[in-house]
């Protein structure tokens, strides 16, 4: 087994561990770090279930990223959106709008929403729908998810997002 010692910074915490070089970021999160909130969906970058944030802004598919390639970057999962036990406004908006049914797509939806709002704090409905292109939900039909993104945008202090340079830790 070809392995490498790597350090991953996830949700503001450094984790140092030995990983096989063919480990994806998703496998490292779920199987090495036991952070199972990020989901495996299609494994080919089409469903968005494995979406995480890089450096507070860029949403990427963790199933198509090698763990070693994520070294030196700040990774945020949905677990990192909660601060001191307080839900993030995006999480609250998804709950209040009922934008969750089975919940499998929700971690990816939340992280993609974080990316949309980090890059554009006040998106139009069209921009939200285009922005969610890469996240599939098989239950809700997207209407409530779009409303949740709109509500999150209204709830959040946009100047704070811009000042902190992104979402998460």
């Amino acid at each position, binding site marked *: 087994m070809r392995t490498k010692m790597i350090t991953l910074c996830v949700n503001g915490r450094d984790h140092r561990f030995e990983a096989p070089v063919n480990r994806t970021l998703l496998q490292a999160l779920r199987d090495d770090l036991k952070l199972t909130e990020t989901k495996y969906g299609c494994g080919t970058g089409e469903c968005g279930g494995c979406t995480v944030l890089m450096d507070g802004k860029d949403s990427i598919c963790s199933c198509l990223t090698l763990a070693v390639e994520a070294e030196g970057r700040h990774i945020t999962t949905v677990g990192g959106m909660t601060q001191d036990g307080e839900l993030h406004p995006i999480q609250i908006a998804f709950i209040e709008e009922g934008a969750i049914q089975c919940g499998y797509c929700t971690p990816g939806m939340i992280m993609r929403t974080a990316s949309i709002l980090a890059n554009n704090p006040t998106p139009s409905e069209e921009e939200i729908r285009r922005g969610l292109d*890469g996240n599939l939900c098989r239950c809700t039909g997207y209407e409530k998810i779009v409303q949740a993104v709109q509500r999150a945008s209204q709830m959040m202090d946009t100047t704070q997002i811009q000042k902190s340079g992104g979402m998460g830790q």
Partner: protein
Amino acid sequence: MSSRVLPQFDLLTPQSIPEAVAMLAQHQGQVSVLAGGTDMLVWNYIRKVKPAYLLRLSGLDDLDNVNYIPGEGLRIGAKAKVVQLLDNPDVAEKFPALFQAAETFATPQIRNMATVMGNVLRGSPAGDCSCAILALGGQVVLQGPEGERLVDIDDFWVAYGVTERKDDELAVELRIPEPTSTTRSAFIRMTRVHEDLAKLNVAVCLEINQNTCQQVRISMGCVGPILVRLKQTEKMLVGKQISDGLLQQLAASAQEEIAPIDDQRSTEEYRRQVAGVILKRVIEKAIGAH
């Protein structure tokens, strides 16, 4: 057959272009180059490729940028992501076909990961950025043991999934020439559903003076094993005033010039029928765009 686990490989992480080229030469034929990974890792998952080594570009500086250089044109580094085309105002203004291809390219997550060069190196006849680049014209810069060579984009794809790049060469940059004040370009693609690969795509780049076409390059995808220029159709357009009648003739010519097949995304018959229609539309879109 997809697997949730990637095959075993060793990683190569060169710190300079010469080191990367030396590694490619040393392990010739056993190396896959990893940049964005959105195609390469999927190919590994499905065991379409099983390289002994993955050569990562992460350690190489200076390949990240999309730069417009006045008087020369656009320079796209091998590590530049598709999203960078959308973030660069010069691309939107001066290379609209490429901007429009990037806009519809895959999904936001994939645009954040996939490189423009990767799309070209994939050698797919459905590549959206590749289709736009073929219409705009340009060159691929390759670094090999003997130094640098430039391959015209017209000659770069030789068969399905096969390019002019040799195993010991690293593709480092794409160059797209400077447009003039009379250059117009546009891109259109058709898909079954939005995030799908194209079932047909087309790009056009024209030199237009008082509604007369002086030069044109038309590229079409998903109508043969590689992206193609519609050279017969281009000839019918040069020196002519663009009119509804001429557009009809071009549409008929395009249908004759392509060689589509039936596959999971469309049929030969359908592709032939719509090829003429989207050619007309892309020319109208290009002329309308300033």
